[in-house]
C-alpha cells in the first residue's frame, strides 16, 4: 500500500513536470510565433518627406525601379498648364514630345472638357525619376508623388534606395498599410 502510494506520488510529480514543461514550451512557441508572423513590414516612401532627388530611379535593384509615380486625382487641379507634365521651357501646351517633362512619356494627357485635363501615369513606362513630382510640387499642389509598388518590390532586407535617400523618406511600414496616402490615392488605385 505504502509502495503504491509512493509510486503514485512519483507518477504525479513526473506528470506534473511534463505538463508544466509542455505548457511552457507551447507558451514560448506561441509568443515567438506571434512575433514572427503577426506583422509583415515593407518599404515605402513618405511623399511628404520626399525631395524628388531622382535617386529612386537609379538605386533600386530592379531596372526599371519598383518606385513609380502615382496620382492623387482628388488633389489635382486638372490644369491645362501642368508643371508635372510640361517642361518649364515648353513652347506649346500640348502633347508634343518637345514639351513633355517625362523622359519616358509615361504621363498621358487627356482632355476632359474646357478647361480640364487629366494626367494618367503609365506604370509600365514610369522609371520613378521624380521629374514630374518635382514639377508638380514646385508649380502645382503636389498631387503627383512617388510610391514603392509592392507587386514589384523585392522587399530587400536592406533597401538600396533607402540607404541613399537624402531626406530619409523611405522606411519600413506595416504591410497592411503599405502605401502612404496622399490625397485619395489608395492601394487599389496603385495596382499593387
Amino acid at each position: 500500500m505504502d509502495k503504491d502510494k509512493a509510486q503514485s506520488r512519483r507518477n504525479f510529480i513526473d506528470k506534473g513536470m511534463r505538463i508544466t514543461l509542455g505548457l511552457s514550451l507551447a507558451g514560448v512557441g506561441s509568443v515567438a510565433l506571434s512575433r514572427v508572423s503577426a506583422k509583415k513590414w515593407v518599404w515605402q516612401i513618405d511623399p511628404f518627406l520626399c525631395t524628388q532627388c531622382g535617386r529612386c530611379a537609379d538605386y533600386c535593384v530592379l531596372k526599371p525601379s519598383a518606385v513609380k509615380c502615382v496620382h492623387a486625382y482628388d488633389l489635382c487641379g486638372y490644369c491645362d498648364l501642368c508643371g508635372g507634365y510640361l517642361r518649364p521651357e515648353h513652347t506649346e501646351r500640348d502633347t508634343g514630345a518637345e514639351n513633355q517633362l517625362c523622359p519616358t512619356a509615361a504621363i498621358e494627357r487627356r482632355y476632359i472638357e474646357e478647361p480640364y485635363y487629366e494626367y494618367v501615369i503609365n506604370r509600365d513606362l514610369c522609371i520613378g525619376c521624380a521629374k514630374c513630382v518635382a514639377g508638380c510640387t514646385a508649380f502645382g499642389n503636389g498631387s503627383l508623388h512617388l510610391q514603392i509598388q509592392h507587386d514589384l518590390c523585392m522587399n530587400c532586407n536592406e533597401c538600396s534606395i533607402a540607404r541613399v535617400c537624402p531626406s530619409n523618406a523611405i522606411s519600413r511600414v506595416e504591410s497592411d498599410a503599405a502605401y502612404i496616402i496622399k490625397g485619395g490615392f489608395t492601394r487599389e488605385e496603385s495596382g499593387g
Partner: protein
Amino acid sequence: MPSLKLRSNVQHIILLLLVVAGIMILSWWIGANPVKDLSVSVPGADSAGVAYTAALENVSIGEFFERLDNRETVLSEDWPRFRGPDYDNIYKGNIQLIDRFGAGGPEILWTAELGEGHAGPAIYDGKAYLLDYDEEQGADMLRCFSLPDGTELWRRWYEVRVKRNHGMSRTVPAVTEDYILTMGPRCHVMCTDRETGDLIWGIDIEKEYESEVPLWYTGQCPLIDNDLAVIATGGKALMIAVDCATGEKVWETPNPDGWKMSHSSVMPFTFGGRKMYVYSAVGGICGIAADGEDAGRMLWSTNAWNHDVIAPSPVCMPDGKIYMTAGYGAGGMVLQLSVSNGSYAIEVRQEYKPAEGLACEQQTPIYTDGLLYGIMPKDGGTLRNQLICVSPDDCTNVVWSSGQTARFGMGPFILADGKFFLLNEDGMLYIIQKDTRQYIQLDSRQVFEGQDAWAPLALADGYLLLRDSKYMVCISIKS
C-alpha cells in the same frame, strides 16, 4: 593538283557564303526598325477640344440689382484699388497700428461667406467692395459691405458660366468717388455708380476684342485713372481707355504682335516727364502713353520679358528701373528705362532664375526706401516661400531672408506704419518690423483656419480685410 583545286573551290564557296551572309545581315540591319513599337508624341494626342467661346453665351453685364440695407458709415480713409491709393501696397495713413496682438486677439469683427476664389476687396468711404462669384446663382456679383460691421448693403450681378478652376473670382475692383470698375473671371468689365450701384456700362472683352481668357481666369485688376477705365485687353487691341461716364472708347493701343492678356495689372508710372501705363503681357512688357495727344501710343516695349503665366505686376522705380517677376520657373528681371529727346529705350539690366534671386509667383513685391521685399516661390531653392529683401541694383544679392522657420506660401502682405502685415495662405497673420538689415518678426496669430488665402489685403481706418478661398474677415489692427 586535284586536292589543291578542291581546296580552292571550298575556299570560294566559303567566301561566297560569307558574302551572302554579310549581305543578308546588312539588309536586315538596314531594313530593321528598332523603334517600330514606339509611338511618337505629337500635338493633339490629348484630343484637346475647342474652348467654349463667348459668342455662344450672351452675358447681360450688370443685369440684376438688389439693395439690402441703407445704413451709412462715415470713415476717412480709402484703399480704393489693387495695391492701394499709390499702387505700391503701402498704407500711408496716420492711424497707429498694433505691434503685437493682444491676448486672444485679433478680434474678428465680421465674416462674410464668399464664392470660392481669390478676389480681393477695395475700400472707399466706409464701404468694402468685392467682385464675388456666387456659385448658387452662377453669377459675377459685385457686393458692397459696410466696413465697420460687415452688413451687406447692395449687390449687382450678371449670370455667367464659370467653372471651378483653382477658384473662380480673382480681381480687385477700382473705386473712385463716382465709379466702381470690375473685371470678372471671364473678362466682363462692368462700370457702376459707386453710391447707388446703378449700372453705367459693361464690355465683354473676350467677345469684343477676341481676347483669350488667361489660364485660371482673369487676374488683372482694372484701373480707373482720371475717370478713364484702363484695361489691358490683349487680342485686337493691347490696351484700351474707356470714359467711365459714357462707356465711349477714348483710345485703343494696337496689338500688332498679338500679345495676350496676363494676370498682371496695369501700373501707372511717370518717368522722363511723361505719364505712362506699364503692362506686362504674355508676349512682352511695354509702356503706353497715358495722356497728351498721343495717349494710347506705345512709348517703348520689349519681348525680353515673356512668360506663359505672369501674375505679379511691374514694380516701377523712380530711377527708371522696372522690376518684373513671375512664377513657374520664370524668375526675375530688372529692366532699365531711359529717355533721350523724348524717345524711350528699355534694356535688360539683370535676369535670373527663381533660385538665384528675388522672384515671386503671385504677389507683387513692395518697393520702399530703395529695397524690394517679396515672398519667394516654391522653386526658390533654399529660400523657397521665405520673405526676402534685396536691392534692385542686384536682386540676386539677398540682404536678408526670413529663415527656414518662417515660410509663407503665396500669401499677401502690405506695408503699414513701418510694419509688414503678412497673411500666410493658411490664415496665420504675421507682424514683421520693416528693417533694412534683418528679419524681425514682432508677432503672429492664427486669424482663421484658412485655405489658399491669396487675395490682396485692404486696409483703411484701422480695418484690415483678409480672405481665404471661402470667407472674408475684417479685423481691427488699430493700436
